[in-house]
């Protein structure tokens, strides 16, 4: 078999980064656990889970778009818009909870579909289209809200919902709350949907080779709407959960989270060229980022330093995955040396 893999297998090499990521996480975790005593405590871990639930929900949506071969920069802005509009509906019109939630989610999905339309119908590159959409929706939000936060969210929205709670030996309270449960449900659903449903597999196929997907009769247009619509929906959900956690709607609260989420997804092995990535990988990416941020925080390190560490971690972990798989597989059986016959 011709071994012409090494030259163009970069994609192939990036396929199973989860194992490496897990190793890096274990190393980093051990270091922090030794340096900062609180780091490995149950309350700290649960707290981390809750803090990063919003980003994880967004990451699940972004993951789908990345797999489909696109990229989206506008989801944090979408989340803010959906959250703020829902907050307005709840406070100004006083509509009941289900209507507010559905309205918020619909707004997010609709914004995602606008992205899909721009990308598929107008043939604008996804990064350009979504950067433009980010500026537009975020600026409109700031303009109409004048940057004013909404503090008077109804109780149904801000009341903590605890699914399970227990007390540790030391007397700390540990609670499994709504954001954590939402995140888990979303992750589980996304995972099952992308690996076990036809649409999910079609999305992988489209990300791997869009022209081939078109040629076998996959509806490329429809899939664009599915992927970006799903991200819009997840962004809105994340927005609603974020307001639930902090008890208010601040228009620019989620500004800038898109890059953190994107780094986590890439760190977790989702390819920017499409077709490659897994839900567990992306979650591990978030875990690593969360650990770094929290650990360095506990150690009292400046947040600029954190950015540097993130950058370096991404570089190291991606190079490790590349190098580790570079040893090509060789499997020819070489004939016996010809004897003297």
């Amino acid at each position, binding site marked *: *078999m*011709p*071994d*012409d*893999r*090494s*030259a*163009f*297998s970069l*994609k*192939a090499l990036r*396929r199973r980064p989860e194992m490496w990521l897990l190793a890096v996480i274990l190393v980093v975790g051990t270091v922090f656990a030794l340096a900062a005593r609180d780091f490995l405590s149950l309350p700290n871990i649960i707290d981390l889970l809750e803090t990063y639930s919003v980003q994880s929900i967004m990451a699940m949506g972004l993951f789908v778009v990345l797999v489909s071969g696109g990229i989206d920069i506008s989801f944090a802005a979408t989340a803010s818009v959906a959250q703020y509009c829902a907050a307005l509906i709840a406070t100004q019109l006083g509509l009941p909870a289900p209507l507010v939630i559905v309205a918020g989610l619909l707004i997010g999905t609709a914004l995602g579909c606008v992205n899909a339309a721009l990308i598929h119908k107008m043939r604008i590159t996804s990064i350009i289209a979504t950067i433009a959409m980010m500026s537009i929706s975020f600026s409109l939000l700031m303009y109409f809200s004048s940057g004013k936060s909404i503090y008077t969210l109804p109780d149904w929205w801000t009341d903590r919902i605890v699914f399970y709670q227990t007390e540790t030996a030391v007397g700390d309270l540990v609670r499994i709350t709504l954001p954590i449960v939402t995140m888990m449900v979303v992750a589980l659903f996304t995972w099952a949907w992308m*690996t*076990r*449903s*036809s*649409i*999910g*597999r*079609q999305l*992988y*196929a489209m*990300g*791997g*080779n869009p*022209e*081939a*997907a*078109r*040629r*076998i*009769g*996959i*509806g490329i247009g429809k899939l664009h709407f599915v992927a970006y619509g799903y991200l819009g929906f997840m962004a809105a959900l994340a927005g609603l959960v974020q307001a639930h956690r902090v008890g208010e709607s601040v228009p620019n609260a989620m500004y800038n989270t898109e890059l953190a989420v994107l780094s986590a997804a890439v760190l977790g092995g989702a390819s920017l060229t*499409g*077709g*490659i990535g897994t839900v567990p990988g992306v979650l591990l990416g978030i875990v690593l980022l969360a650990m770094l941020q929290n650990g360095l925080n506990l150690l009292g390190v400046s947040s600029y330093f954190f950015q540097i560490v993130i950058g370096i971690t991404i570089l190291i972990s991606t190079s490790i995955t590349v190098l580790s798989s570079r040893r090509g*597989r*060789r*499997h*020819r*059986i*070489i*004939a016996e*040396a*010809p004897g003297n016959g």
Partner: protein
Amino acid sequence: MADETPFLRLTGISKRFGGVKALDGIDWDVKRGEIHCLVGENGCGKSTLIKAVVGVHAPSSGTIEIDGADVPVLDPARAKALGIQVIFQDLSLFPNLSVAENIAIENHLEHALKPVRKERLRGVARDVLRRLNFDLDLSTIVSDLSVAERQIVAIARGLAAQARLIFMDEPTASLTRAEVNRLLAIVSRLKADGIAVVFVSHRLDEVVEIAERVTVMRDGRKVGTWPVAEVDQKRIAHLMTGLDIDHSIVARDMGDAPELLHVEKLSRRGEFADIDFTLHQGEVLGIIGLLGSGRTELALTLFGMHRADAGAITLDGKPLRLSSNRDAVEAGIAYVSEDRLGLGVILPQSIGDNIILAVMKQLAGRFGLIATKSRQKLADDWVKRLSIKVAGTDRPVQTLSGGNQQRVVLAKWLATRPKVLILDSPTVGVDIKNKQGIYEVVAELARQGVGVILISDEVSEVFATCDRVLHMRSGRIIGAEVPGQVSEHEMEERIYA
């Protein structure tokens, strides 16, 4: 003969790409359950015709009838629903998905919300591969496969779905004779099941072997359709090109010429072992062997892409240490790879830019800038010498036909003016006239003193072009022959034995 309506009938199909008229008023039909071969030079419009039928490119004009009924506009999904399958020339696989999923991809198209049953996918894929008598690991990701294995996956995908007509666009391009035979047997079996096959190939021996009817195309027009009994290889070649082509032996004894490249005990674990040979100046040395014989791996090592575990390479009497292909290029070794479309060209870039890619350093003047004029001249020169069919050297490579893309890669490496030129299956997918053109270029280079290593699995090719032929099997050189001293038939026997 109950029903004589053909399965597919085209009337006046034309297709333009900008200014280029790729198809010009094609009238054509395919009967039920027939094996119909489509031949013509590179760029004559064979692939475009197929794509126009299945709606990958909408035809600019003309009508398509299926089963005697007009079908308005086909798109890929509707063509499938009507029972038309295509094995595309560029394979159109999904590099990120497994073999099983690629083969059974259509299972995903049935119902969007239906859960995917992995076992079912694997079952479908296993059945087809068994029918084809190929053994591939179903969970391997396609980007890890070799070119030939990918070709097999593409064929398997075309056969997996229920079809009444299968277009096969150069399905044998990267297969060796043994594999080709298996495919041809399958094609005959399809016919027995009443499935029509349209088979595109540049290997005319295959064509006359399986076809019932042959359609010859030239410059976007149909020359005509003949029952295969009325034409032979020579006649087809003549209809395609308007030329008569003969293969005569050119082997010369180059033993007295100065040694150029000397390889001693070269080994690479798991790939090849104890390779010894000498290449003289101006010699054309053939390396022939079946798929998996280690020939490509050897070439990649000589080109510095892989490192040898043991052994020595000497070039011009000086030991050669290759730690990358850049070293090889600098030492004067050029390599035209087997997987041209994967490795050889940058598809969206212009033809001119691709040709100068490997010589940018030499072309660059002060400050590392390249004069447009010298670039243009070089590109035009090679386009002419290799008679590449282009609308202009500023057009992107991806607008060329498959065979012409290949010649762009050849031009790129010839522009480096190498001392040693390694050609890995250089004429796969190239039409006969231009095969001849490439052989002439090779002969011309050899006359200028370039040493050429020609890797191939077509005996007729090495027989007609090489001075000496090494025979590789299972990673070792097991024999050397001189064309003329053994007959082509004898050589074939030894290789396929």
